[in-house]
């Protein structure tokens, strides 16, 4: 799939996390390869979102290692991990609600010289320059996700599907190479569903982004995922193509229940 072959983007080894005696993650290891779409599936409470939170630094694991492009990222604050190139969306959507769609996007770029106080007063031209560049890019992304008509509306005025598109666009504006998407198509109408899925596919195909997404909608998983990881009780139960996992998952279900 990816143009750059099978180099590994993210390597997770032996990650464990316990919340109040409950093992949310139990010795999880996996490697995400560049340009691939990986789906994380499994029942609620399987530890999928916890894994995302550990990767982007919101939660510290009890043990284990994570390397991104060969460098350890555990223990780094979330903003550093984000700056390294790991972007994410949230299961319960997070947006800057009272700010406009454009401002939401402009806040998502990793580099903006005008965000340093000193430069506002001593290097105003460079501030203006990056602001103009970012604005152009932001408007392109807004067009890509089809929100051009809503540019100056506050984010909270958008429909749920449009908010999902906006959060995806913000992820893209960050320019990260690894996108962690938490339930990207949950609760959207069929038209929005198509748009989001084709966007994800295009990202991996055309821009060799690596995507890892959590999803309960098996139609979406079957359609875009190169690889499916089935988690339950904080452990990886199965790992393979959709067909492989679907086959063994049913036998697994029968086995457990």
């Amino acid at each position: 799939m990816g143009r750059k072959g099978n180099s590994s983007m993210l390597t997770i080894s032996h990650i464990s996390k316990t919340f109040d005696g409950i093992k949310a993650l139990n010795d999880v290891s996996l490697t995400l390869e560049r340009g691939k779409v990986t789906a994380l599936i499994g029942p609620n409470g399987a530890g999928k979102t916890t894994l995302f939170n550990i990767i982007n630094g919101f939660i510290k694991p009890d043990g284990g290692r994570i390397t991104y492009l060969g460098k350890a990222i555990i223990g780094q604050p979330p903003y550093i991990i984000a700056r390294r190139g790991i972007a994410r969306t949230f299961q319960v959507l997070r947006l800057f609600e009272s700010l406009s769609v454009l401002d939401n996007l402009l806040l998502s770029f990793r580099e903006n010289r005008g965000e340093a106080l000193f430069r506002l007063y001593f290097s105003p031209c460079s501030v203006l320059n990056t602001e103009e560049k970012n604005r152009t890019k932001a408007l392109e992304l807004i067009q890509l996700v089809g929100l051009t008509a809503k540019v100056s509306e506050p984010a909270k005025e958008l429909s749920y599907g449009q908010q999902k598109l906006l959060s995806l666009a913000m992820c893209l504006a960050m320019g990260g190479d690894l996108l962690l998407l938490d339930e990207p198509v949950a609760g959207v109408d069929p038209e929005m569903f198509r748009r989001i899925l084709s966007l994800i596919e295009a990202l991996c195909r055309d821009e060799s982004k690596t995507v890892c997404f959590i999803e309960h909608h098996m139609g979406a998983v079957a359609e875009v995922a190169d690889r499916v990881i089935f988690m339950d009780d904080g452990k990886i139960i199965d790992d393979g193509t959709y067909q492989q996992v679907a086959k063994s998952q049913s036998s697994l279900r029968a086995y457990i229940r």
Partner: protein
Amino acid sequence: MNYLLHIIIFIEIYIIAAVSLNLISGYTGLISVAHAAFYGIGAYIVALLALHFHTPFMLNLVLAIIGAVALATVVALPSLRLTEDYFIIATFAFQVIIYSVMNNWVSFTSGPLGLPGIPQPVIFGWVVDNHISFLVLGGILAILAYLFSWRIANSPYGRVLKGVREDEILAEALGKNTMRFKVTVFLVGSGLVAIAGSLYAVYITFIDPSSFTIDESIFMLSIVIVGGMGNLWGSVLGAVLLVSIPEILRFLGMPNSIAANMRQILYGLLLVLFMVFRPRGMIGEKR
């Protein structure tokens, strides 16, 4: 005439205070009740330097800003690690500490007796000693403080401040070092209000701790809320309104003892009415 000028000079002082607090509380969402403490620190630094060392006003002003920023750093680093409610409590504690120091460190601040006879400023040969010249000095400082804040409010930096207010976790996930933004804006706001404090000290020529209490902090916050959080013009209008309203009471022929209480009641009433009917203030944030 002088009475009118006097009110305008006070409006100028409070414009500086409210605009700087708006950056912290309106834009960034950090509700601070310690603003009067930094206002007082500015006033005390200018007063003490002028009284003991007879240094020129401009130098004192710069040192007052530096002093307030330095102290703000000490406050900001631990308290900004706290989330909303706890941050308010931390600033409250700092406000109380500063007031106690001003009140009790008698050998340094003269305690409740205050510091009388603060020399009036001479700026490069310009003697500021009457109402008109104070009006001009206050106007210049207020305009500078406003422009400085305007630059912040309407910049990518200011946009991140709003982002931090809206959703700090999202801002972190997007690669913003939210702590850096919170600390720096707190320092900037505290430094700016020290200018207001300096102006107050040299204009009144007498300061004592009673001008820098928690009541004063809450008054400044009221200006920001009534004027409109996240809108600098709102703070200007708020300052005009809240400083001049109690003066109008005087003309209603109310004896001073009652007018003072009426003032408090009126502020309280105004705040409640705004919270209920116009929570965004007179002019809210631009969208």
